[in-house]
């Protein structure tokens, strides 16, 4: 085989995890449990489908963003080290969005990569409302891979569901996923991660996505979908 062999198409999956002060304690414990529980299920999904290799990165954010897993790691190889909440840390999403934008910006991903998937998990409204937040979202959607990225948000607690999360998702037909209590975080995270990965791998069927996220669908997004016209 000329060129060094073949490989599945990379699917860059980025978790943006809120580590602000309000996540301290039970919520952070539940989020760590949820991510640790999600990874093997995402790895199992990866094995079962036919196109994508899932590469995971994790960005923790509070007052400032920090890469918890900076380099893309194949989902099956990632050993989870717990996130820590930042005592007194704010929920500054603008800098976090800019950090993600820089990571997947022009020439940062493989040409053959599938559309990146970004999952935002937060228990609060952004504290950097105004220009900073808009600039972060603007940075993420200022280049093709960022615009094309599939974005989902999990709100921990009903209070966390905000207009900003809808703006982040960028599609009025896709709901913010609400984990009403810590017990629901793991379940919602697994559903969201697999849904967003399937969509990136297989194409857009937002109706099926909504059904899957809300638990009203039977089969989830179709896996046979791919190219359509600009």
């Amino acid at each position: 085989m000329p060129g060094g062999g073949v490989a599945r198409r990379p699917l860059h999956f980025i978790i943006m995890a809120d580590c602000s002060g309000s996540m301290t304690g039970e919520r952070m414990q539940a989020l760590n449990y949820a991510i640790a529980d999600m990874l093997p299920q995402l790895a199992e999904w990866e094995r079962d489908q036919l196109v994508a290799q899932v590469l995971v990165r994790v960005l923790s954010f509070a007052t400032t963003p920090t890469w918890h897993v900076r380099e893309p790691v194949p989902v099956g190889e990632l050993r989870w080290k717990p996130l820590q909440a930042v005592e007194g840390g704010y929920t500054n999403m603008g800098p976090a969005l800019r950090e993600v934008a820089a990571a997947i910006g022009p020439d940062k991903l493989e040409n053959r990569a599938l559309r990146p998937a970004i999952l935002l998990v937060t228990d609060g409204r952004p504290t950097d409302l105004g220009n900073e937040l808009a600039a972060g979202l603007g940075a993420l959607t200022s280049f093709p891979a960022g615009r094309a990225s599939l974005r989902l948000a999990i709100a921990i607690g009903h209070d966390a569901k905000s207009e900003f999360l809808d703006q982040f998702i960028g599609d009025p037909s896709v709901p913010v996923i609400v984990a009403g209590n810590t017990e629901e975080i793991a379940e919602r995270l697994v559903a969201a991660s697999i849904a967003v990965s399937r969509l990136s791998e297989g194409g857009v069927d937002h109706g099926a996505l909504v059904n899957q996220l809300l638990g009203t669908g039977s089969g989830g997004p179709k896996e046979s979908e791919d190219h359509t016209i600009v």
Partner: protein
Amino acid sequence: MRTSSDVPPIDAQPWTVLVASARGAAHAAAGLPNQDASAWRVLETLGPPLVVAAVADGHGHPRHFRAERGAHLAVEQACACVERLADQLLVGRSGGELEAFARETLVPSVVQAWRRAVAADHAASAFTPDEEAIRAQVADEPVIAYGATLLLALLSERWLLVAQIGDGDVAALFADGRVETPVPVDPTLDGHYTTSLCQAAAVDSFRIAVIDRAASPVLALLLATDGFGNAQASDPWPPAVGADLISMLGTRGMEWVRGQLPIWTERCASTEGSGDDTTVILAVHAS
């Protein structure tokens, strides 16, 4: 007309054309056919023989439910258009004039011929109730159902002309070991959306390249649907794949490469690779 990999290639001096195509693993799992198509011809002209070659990739999205037919019509009509225009294409033209002729005459002819062929196909075979339900849901014009890309190459002793709409790859392999991707990049192609023959602005979406072999002696030209490039482990892949092909052609020879091409194509289309339909035409000059 050659449209499938099981037809033995015919040598056409000075170009030899190798073809392979494989159904993508994801398409097989979904019960979809191979929606790629390929065709090539040796053209009788007033001058030296010309070769025209084309590959097309029918879009996999459900709204393009006749994409397989669209891809076959694309390669057939493209080759037929080049054949009709062959005597005008190369006679006394500079590279710039050839590119202008391609943009102003050849590409509009190809698009028009494809749309006419699609209309004839639709007239002869109306949409089934299931197909019509899909079309009506998104209120598409019937032509959208046939959406496909097209990569078209005309190869002569001196000139290489390539016209492309949509994704897929063209790599020029030079005798001195260089590899180039001559067709300009289209920034609107993001791996999910593609430009297409079925769009109203199809003519303007074509990208064109002309190579003068007198200045840059091309050893081989590779045309591939995106299932090939999306399967390559190396990134960017054209330099690595191209350099190896040049080496293999030199050391192992044409017949060996001819035998290997279907195997490579199958690997690209497999679950180890892109899982997508994969079609490759490798045109090799006798030099």
